[in-house]
Structures are given as structure tokens and as C-alpha cells.
């Protein structure tokens, strides 16, 4: 042992040194500085005044902070309860034996993930417009025959007219649904890859014997497939929540003023960014950052508890 240590000399430290220096400079120092910064009132990057916990207190008193928190929670719920089931469904479909074109489908579903968030936001801001936007025009074309069918009748009030559809304010009051749909387009195929990998752990034998026992597709999914992919599913849910809570570029680029009408699309990180760089209050931004970190730590601990409970059972 001592002989080998002598022979490699300082090599290990030399290999780690570039990483260590950059990590200390650009992760550790900002991390440590975020504590005093969150306890200060700043005037741009150069001047600051210590104010204790005032920034945290004012965040808790700040209605916009609560709106941002609520919106972010709802967006995360949309990711977990809408996007992930779609990802899992796509994975189950692609996991069929003897599927022709599996590689092409997988590549196509994955491809929106390559579009950067800023660029996807610009595209979405055009597609979700009133009147000329692709989404509203498609919806208008869809309701038109139904609306014509019931025109003048009692049902007319129940079926929206094409004009109403063209006026749907996705980027203004419907900002959250628009964000959830855009994220669905971008990430459903990405999470599908995790589920596809997990489905390789499902035993064909168990599925076949369940089939012989007369279990239908739903019961087979519930009792054989789901337990087998549970560890990956819990992990994907956690990643999805953590990612959702950091939502920023999409709304910032897509929505008017980056927030939509009356803050309907304001997220925590958008508020952090606007506080730090538009209002110039870096202390407030750091305090919001710490509250975000605490919330995410809560989710991570919850995930630990869930998977430990699963392991015990």
C-alpha cells in the first residue's frame, strides 16, 4: 500500500484539483454567500445592508410570493398527474413485443426535449396566441361542426362557438394550463425513457402466469407491472417535482411580462429572478432561493420515507 502511494505521488490531487478549485469558486462560495446575502437588503451587486430575517418575513407577508408558490404547486401537480401518466402510457405502448418502428417513435417522442426551454417558450408564445394561434384555430375547427349542429337549439349554450374558441386567452388567464401543456410536449417523451428502462424489469413469466389465471390487462398492470416499476416511478415523480419547482425559462419567455395576466403564470423562480434582477433586490432573491431549497428538501425526505415504507412491505 505504502509502496503504491509513493509511486503515484501527487497524481490523484492533480487529477482532482481543477474540479476542486472550480467547485469551491463557483459552487461552494456562492452557496456559503447565499446565507448572509439572504439576510441583507441589497442595492444592486455592490451595496448591502444586514437586515436579519426581514427578507424571509416579508416573503411570508408577500401575496405575490404565495401566488407564485400556489402556481408552482399546481404546475408540479400537472406534471405528476398528467405528464407522467402519459409518459408511462407511451412507454407501455412502445414496450409491446414485435413493434415495428419502435426506434423511430422513441426518437420522435424524445426530440422536443432537445429544443431549449427558451426556444420552446418562443414557439409556444406564438402557438398559444388568441385568434391566429395554432391551438385556438384547431379548437375552433373542432367545435365548428358541433356548434352548427345545435345552432338555435337548446344545447347551443353548452357547446362553445368557434369565435369563443379563437378568443381563449392561453397566455393571459389560462397561463398555467398552457405551461402544463407545453411541458407535456417537451418532457413526456423524456420521462418515457425512464419508464421504458423500468419496464425491462417486469417479468414476462409473471405476466403470462397472471394471464393464465384469468387476470385482465388492468389487473395485470396493477398487480404485476406497477409493483415492478415502483422504485423507478417514485424516483421519476421526485425528479419531476424537483424540475417543476425550478420552472422559469418557459413562463419567462412565453407569457406577457413573464407572468401572464394578474400573475396567473408567476412561478417561484420567475419571482426570484424578477426580484433579483428587475427590482434589484438580490437579498430577497437569495431568501426565496432558500425557501425553495427547503421545500425541495421536504419532498426529498418524503420520497425517502415512501421508498423505505415500500421496502419494508
Amino acid at each position, binding site marked *: 500500500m505504502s509502496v503504491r502511494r509513493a509511486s503515484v505521488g501527487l497524481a490523484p490531487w492533480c487529477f482532482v484539483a481543477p474540479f476542486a478549485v472550480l467547485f469551491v469558486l463557483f459552487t461552494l462560495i456562492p452557496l456559503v454567500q447565499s446565507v448572509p446575502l439572504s439576510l441583507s437588503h441589497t442595492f444592486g451587486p455592490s451595496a448591502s445592508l444586514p437586515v436579519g430575517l426581514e427578507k424571509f418575513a416579508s416573503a411570508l407577508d408577500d401575496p405575490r410570493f404565495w401566488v407564485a408558490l400556489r402556481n408552482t404547486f399546481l404546475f408540479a401537480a400537472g406534471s405528476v398527474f398528467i405528464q407522467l401518466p402519459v409518459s408511462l402510457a407511451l412507454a407501455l405502448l412502445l414496450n409491446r413485443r414485435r*413493434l415495428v418502428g419502435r426506434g423511430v417513435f422513441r426518437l420522435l417522442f424524445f426530440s422536443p426535449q432537445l429544443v431549449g426551454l427558451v426556444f420552446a417558450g418562443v414557439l409556444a408564445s*406564438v402557438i398559444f396566441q388568441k385568434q391566429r394561434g395554432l391551438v385556438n384555430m384547431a379548437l375552433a375547427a373542432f367545435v365548428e361542426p358541433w356548434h352548427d349542429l345545435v345552432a338555435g337549439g337548446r344545447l347551443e349554450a353548452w357547446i362553445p362557438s368557434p369565435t369563443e374558441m379563437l378568443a381563449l386567452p392561453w397566455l393571459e388567464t389560462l397561463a398555467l394550463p398552457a405551461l402544463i401543456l407545453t411541458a407535456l410536449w417537451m418532457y413526456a417523451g423524456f420521462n418515457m425513457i425512464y419508464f421504458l428502462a423500468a419496464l425491462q424489469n417486469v417479468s414476462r413469466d409473471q405476466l403470462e402466469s397472471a394471464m393464465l389465471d384469468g387476470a385482465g390487462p388492468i389487473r395485470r398492470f396493477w398487480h404485476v407491472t406497477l409493483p415492478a416499476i415502483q422504485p423507478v416511478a417514485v424516483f421519476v415523480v421526485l425528479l419531476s417535482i424537483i424540475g417543476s419547482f425550478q420552472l422559469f425559462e418557459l413562463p419567462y419567455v412565453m407569457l406577457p411580462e413573464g407572468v401572464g395576466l394578474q400573475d396567473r403564470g408567476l412561478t417561484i423562480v420567475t419571482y426570484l*429572478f424578477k426580484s433579483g434582477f428587475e427590482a434589484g433586490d438580490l437579498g430577497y432573491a437569495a431568501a426565496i432561493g432558500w425557501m425553495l431549497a427547503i421545500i425541495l428538501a421536504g419532498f426529498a425526505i418524503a420520497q425517502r420515507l415512501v421508498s423505505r415504507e415500500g421496502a419494508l412491505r
Partner: protein
Amino acid sequence: MMPRLTARVSVGALAVYAVLLIASVVVAVPLFYLVVSSFKSEADFLDSVFLPKGDGLFGVGWERLTTEQFRELFSPPIGIGRAMLNSIFLASVTSVLGTLICASAGYALAVYRFRGRAAAEWIVIAALVIPPPLLIAPSYRWLYQLGLLDSYWGVILPAVAPVFGVYLFKQATVQSLPRSILEAARLDGANELSLFLSIGLPMLRPMVGAFLIITFLAMWNNFIGPQIVLQSASKQPLSVVIYLTQTSYYADYGLLMAGTLVSVLPVMVLFLLLQREFITGLTAGAVKGE
């Protein structure tokens, strides 16, 4: 019995293909819309959803498609060529430096027993859970104090030492590099650097390829870093320039779509070309990581 069974199977299969095709259309339509809108004049953008109507093949006015938007994009005052070079520069430098730095650190953590190794490993794992938004405000002030605002290095240096990269390369080295090979080469008198360059990196090749692509993509699509660090227009990459174009030329959709297409296309093509490298690297890590 047999015919009925095959009939049922094919009905099920048809349903599966139908759903997959619908999903494909939903995924592809926005991308198709992006491409088509880039080649339409302002009047045609307002006049037609996808391709302009006309007397050409399939009732499309092919002759009305125009590259005017691209000409406007690449000439002043927008001059998007400069932003493209900035994106290429930032993404290439970051991916090469980041891969070398993470690979050498991960390799060392896996191969050597040295004082401070346990601490370094613990720090890498702990740092994985730091949410990046927490560092936005303090990093900005710190870069200001270091005098790195409005310089390329202010964007590059914070991005070339991602802890998850060190973690990935450490795992890959543990799984794909037998220590005995290193011992044998060492007895032949090879020094540690040449061991890393001639044995370590080649054995880690799939992970090196995948990580180059991941870091390139991440920097190409990075917005927050360049947006807060780079103030001079001449230094800004596509992500910032497209965002600014959107806010200042909001009504000119064709121009905006053309700019977005120009920003998205290079990475899409790159990914398609290097797809196998990318997937091999990722699946190698995942399968062996089990």
C-alpha cells in the same frame, strides 16, 4: 381458434399503432409549424395555418415561400450570425473543458486511494442536491466582485465543474476500468497522466461521448447564465438574442420563427448524427449502474 387469435392480436396492434401515430402527430405538428412559419411572408403567416394556399402541387402556393426572414436575420441590425458563433463557442468550450475536468476527477476518485478522497466523495454527493436557482443571486454578486460580468469566462467557468459529471465518471470508471490493467501498465513504467490519457479515457469513451453531448446541449440551451452575465450584444448567444428579438420584434412572427428554427436545428442535427453515441453512453451507465 388460430385465426380468431390472430385477428384479435392484430386489432389490438392496430389500436396501439393508431394511438402511437396520433401521439406522433401531436409531437411533430409544433415542429412542422415552426419550419413552415419560418419560410412564410408576414401576409401569408396571417393568411394560412401551415403552407400558403395556391395553385401548386397539393393546392399549395410553393412559390410564395420565402427566405426573406433568414436574410433579415443574418443582416444588421439583428445579425444573428454573431449570436450563433457565440453559442457555438460557449457550448464547445464548456463541453470539452467540462468533460475533461469531470472525467479526470471522477477517474481519480475511482482509481486512487488518497487523503481527502472520502471527503471529496461526500461533497460530490451532497452537492448533487443543491437546487441551482439558490445560487443565482449569490453567483451574480460573486461574479461581479471577481470582475467576470460581461465576459465569456463568467458564463463558462461556473458551468465546467458540474458535480453530477464527476459522479457519472466515477461510476463509469468503477464499472468499466479493471484496476489490474492500470497496475500492469504502471509496472511497465507508464506515468499516471499517460495511464489516464491512453487507458482511462479510451475505456470511458461511451461516457465521454455522451457527456460531451449533454454538456454541449445544456450550454447551447442555457439562458439564465448568459442573460445575467453578458450585457454586450456582441457576446450574447442565441438563447438571449432570440428572447430579446421576441420582446422587440413581437409582431413579426415569421422572423421570430426563423430565428427559433436557426437556433434549434443545429442541436437537433447534431443529436441525430451522434444519437448512437449518446444512447450507448447513457444506457451503458444505466445498465451497469443497476
